[in-house]
């Protein structure tokens, strides 16, 4: 689960209790968006055309297919959800223009827009959307996102553009999941998938991708770039100023894994935007002529995971001791150069009310750590392996952690892997300790990682606790969002005592864009990946 998934559960508040909600009413005000340059907004000056080049430090893996989400997320420019979140986290119209809830949310009726098409020209109607969700939750398709839509017990097409979802139990996260177009919420043409997917020609996700977003898929050259072209029949939604189609001719995502290369490409103008600016380059990029840097709070938490079923990590005292041995503040200051906050919980404080910090368990107290290790039966410490992906920031963090662990007698051997090799080790279940990060914006991240149904992947922390499983299931089907938050707060309190991770830092989101890029607004959920309003002044 990689970076730049932005979002918030807060918006359920607004919706879970409403019976009828006209979404046009919650279109964002101008002030909702981060301020764009005033002169950019002047109408009539907008130029069309051009190719916007964005550098990514990651690449979709293995395919671009909402039914087969792997380690990466999806290019949002290709996909839209049933709903789209505005800049204030309110769900607004996406493929659906409005929805109504009946019977306390057990019946959800969505009005599909009648002017929308998939990129291959297929008209989007209730039947197509129904088929999409049928495939998404189909056992044979076996999508990892299946659980996120398992709340759908049945669907009925009421008329050409009206689709009804029937639920057995209330599911407050429904609107959130319908809005996550960069992942499981992205709606694609189910008929194209059936023709080209694994049941058909098996070229879907690499050669063929059919969404309905502002840009259509042209080609993907692995390790190099992905090219998208403007979709001329795109009709925008109220969260954007542009009514559609997009101003740009095309968007190119370049996969540049080496940050110094990405920064150089940005400096000479070969790249217009950097999706991630590593802390060590922030100062340099800020001083470049023609460069702008956006910094904001993120959803990211970097942590050390431990294989909770392998000794000595199966002993909670050991896991707590390791937590107390690490001074997160120092790591944030040194490795993230101040562009991060120390982390004391499983999720980011961006979750607001739902966030629980446990400074006692996740704090810093090396003496107590040694006492706990002695109590656990390791008075002289032990030897373990710490696996880290080959990125300079994480390697530096690993080196500092190695030193901190040594202070309490734990001897850690660092092993670096490039990304694919790292995943192979996790899949092969050979991990002991490993540095990872997540930037998920839903509380479902907790069952995603810690529910036993997800063992051994994505529960590669190998944490199995039947009581917790039951509590996750119970929380997910709370009647209201408030109740859900309350239950997840309690869960986090107890999960913290289990010390499954050593939370390290919460890095800031840092994005850079060149002066030529006009009308750029950072979306707190989708980041820089919806380029409907953006135009280039070249």
């Amino acid at each position: 689960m990689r970076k730049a998934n932005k979002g918030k559960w807060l918006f359920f508040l607004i919706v879970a209790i409403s019976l009828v909600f006209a979404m046009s009413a919650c279109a964002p005000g101008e002030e909702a968006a981060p301020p764009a340059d005033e002169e950019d907004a002047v109408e009539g000056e907008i130029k069309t055309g051009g190719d916007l080049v964005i550098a990514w430090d990651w690449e979709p893996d293995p395919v671009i297919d909402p039914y087969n989400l792997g380690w990466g997320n999806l290019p949002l420019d290709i996909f839209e959800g049933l709903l789209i979140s505005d800049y204030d986290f309110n769900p607004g119209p996406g493929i659906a223009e409005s929805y109504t809830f009946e019977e306390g949310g057990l019946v959800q009726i969505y009005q599909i827009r009648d002017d929308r098409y998939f990129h291959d020209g297929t008209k989007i109607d209730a039947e197509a959307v129904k088929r999409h969700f049928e495939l998404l939750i189909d056992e044979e398709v076996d999508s990892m996102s299946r659980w996120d839509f398992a709340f759908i017990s049945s669907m009925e097409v009421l008329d050409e553009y009206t689709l009804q979802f029937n639920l057995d139990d209330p599911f407050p996260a429904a609107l959130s999941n319908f809005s996550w177009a960069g992942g499981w919420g992205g709606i694609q043409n189910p008929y194209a998938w059936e023709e080209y997917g694994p049941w058909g020609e098996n070229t879907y996700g690499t050669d063929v991708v059919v969404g309905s977003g502002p840009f259509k898929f042209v080609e993907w050259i692995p390790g190099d770039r992905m090219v998208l072209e403007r979709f001329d029949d795109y009709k925008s939604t109220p969260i954007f100023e542009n009514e559609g189609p997009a101003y740009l001719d095309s968007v190119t995502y370049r996969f540049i894994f080496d940050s110094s290369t990405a920064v150089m490409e940005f400096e000479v103008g070969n790249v217009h935007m950097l999706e991630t600016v590593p802390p060590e380059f922030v100062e340099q990029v800020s001083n470049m002529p023609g460069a702008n840097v956006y910094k904001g709070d993120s959803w990211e938490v970097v942590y050390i995971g431990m294989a909770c079923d392998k000794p000595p990590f199966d002993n909670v005292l050991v896991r707590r001791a390791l937590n107390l041995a690490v001074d997160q503040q120092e790591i944030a200051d040194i490795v993230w150069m101040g562009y991060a906050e120390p982390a004391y919980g499983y999720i980011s404080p961006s979750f607001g009310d739902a966030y629980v910090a446990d400074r006692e368990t996740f704090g810093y107290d090396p003496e107590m750590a040694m006492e706990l290790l002695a109590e656990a039966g390791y008075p002289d410490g032990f030897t373990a392996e710490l696996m880290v992906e080959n990125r300079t920031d994480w390697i530096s963090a690993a080196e500092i952690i190695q030193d901190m662990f040594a202070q309490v007698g734990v001897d850690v051997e660092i092993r670096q892997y490039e990304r694919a090799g790292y995943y192979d080790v996790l899949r092969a279940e050979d991990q002991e300790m490993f540095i990872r990060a997540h930037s998920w914006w839903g509380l479902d991240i907790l069952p995603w990682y810690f529910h036993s149904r997800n063992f051994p992947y994505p529960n590669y922390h190998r944490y199995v606790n039947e009581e917790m499983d039951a509590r996750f299931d119970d929380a997910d089907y709370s009647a209201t969002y408030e109740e859900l938050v309350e239950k997840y707060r309690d869960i986090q309190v107890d999960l913290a005592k289990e010390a499954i991770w050593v939370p390290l830092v919460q890095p800031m989101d840092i994005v850079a864009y060149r002066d030529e890029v006009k009308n750029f607004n950072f979306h707190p959920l989708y980041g820089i990946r919806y380029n409907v309003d953006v135009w280039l002044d070249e």
Partner: protein
Amino acid sequence: MFSKRKSAYVGLVIILGFIVIALFAPWIAPHDYRVQDRSSIMESPSLEYPLGTDRVGRCLLSRIIYGARISLTVGLVSVGIGASLGLLIGSISGYMGGWVDRVIMGFVDIVWSFPTMLLAIALTAILQPGLQSVIIALGLVSWPEYARIIRSQFLAVKQKEFVEAARSVGASDFRIIKNHLLPNSIAPIIVVGTLGMATAVLVEATFSYLGLGAQPPEPSWGSILSMGKDFIYHQPLMSIAPGLAIMIMVLGFNLFGDAIRDIMDPRLKN
């Protein structure tokens, strides 16, 4: 001729210099290469830290000094493995001749047809990242060169009269190889081995740069360089110093290797 000797001396002095640095690292280095002084991150050169500090506050000079140990160890051991394997296999091939020779040389051709770097990376991936893996991988991909050379030497030398003489007095195969063939065939191996050291140093640096070689906190020049490239604007010495160290050591082995090759090449004698 003299100019060749001169470069041999320069090369030798560089190599000996690095050997001395590596052997006496604990006394020469101003600090322990592992100790993190996290209140002095990426500092410029000072009296306490002559080359400044790295990202976690370690003395850069001390890390470069200790790094010589890694480069030399990898060079010596991997060349040792490669040359020994090559000697063994090449000797058998050259001495036995016939179908044994054809089979072995066929195998050498197969191994040789793989891109060396790719084969080494694949081996490291299988073996787990780490210095031992780099050494083993380097040894396993470099032996065919030695085998080829020793075989061709054997083919030439085993026709000589003194070998015939030894055989006629009933010397065993092993004795003939050990006392007569090997001593008269070994010279080219020394040349190839010296040049192979330069290659090994470079390959080790490359692997460590990619994260496949020395694992933190081991101060391989390649990994220091890899970390340094992202901080070239903050602490340029983090990339320049290990880069220079690699360059000078490789230069030393190349100068020395080239010179002794020229010296031993009979065609270049007057």
